[in-house]
């Protein structure tokens, strides 16, 4: 079975630009979450979506937005990129919205120059 897939795998952008990252969850999973992982640190929660509705938002500026589509795939958008947005962006899916394990993709490595 296919796991969580993310695209693109790597991305280089310039400060001020906008970026869209994409994620397809494991088949049958209805919840998608986004995490940011800075080098040397653990992942930090950005958003969770369940059945196309936002279920949680982490401590990130409004430049970050996301949505979930009817097929449960998801996009993360970041506007007005800053150097500090350079990180590994991880998407995770889970079967339910509550106490169910997250299954992560391999992430999108974003570099902002």
């Amino acid at each position: 079975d296919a796991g969580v897939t993310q695209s693109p795998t790597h991305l280089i952008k310039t400060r001020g630009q906008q970026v869209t990252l994409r994620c397809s969850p494991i088949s049958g999973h209805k919840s998608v979450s986004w995490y940011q992982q800075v080098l040397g640190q653990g992942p930090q929660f950005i958003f969770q979506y369940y059945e196309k509705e936002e279920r949680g938002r982490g401590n990130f500026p409004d430049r970050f937005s996301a949505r979930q589509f009817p097929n449960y795939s998801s996009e993360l958008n970041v506007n007005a990129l800053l150097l500090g947005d350079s990180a590994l962006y991880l998407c995770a899916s889970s079967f339910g919205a509550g106490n169910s394990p997250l299954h992560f993709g391999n992430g999108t490595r974003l570099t902002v120059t």
Partner: protein
Amino acid sequence: GESVGLHLPTLSVQEGDNSIINCAYSNSASDYFIWYKQESGKGPQFIIDIRSNMDKRQGQRVTVLLNKTVKHLSLQIAATQPGDSAVYFCAGKKVGNTGNQFYFGTGTSLTVIP
């Protein structure tokens, strides 16, 4: 505030020995915990989970222990193999959170010496 953290940033063990990786959490951090393994260039991989109504849970070569009295979590890996070399994270789900928002520790890098 809520937080989880790991005791040691690095750990080296001999192949075949048992490994113990520790994690502490704050007062209201979690009622559900997960251990993840992350290899270079990959996303975190689910290892084992435990709910706060349990003290111990076992999987294949791994055991997670939860001590709610001292707010401590550990991952034990039996007969550690070179393929176990990776960064290990504990993650806790916020108490009362109806979603799936997890707090991650900073990770312990495990190196297995052949």
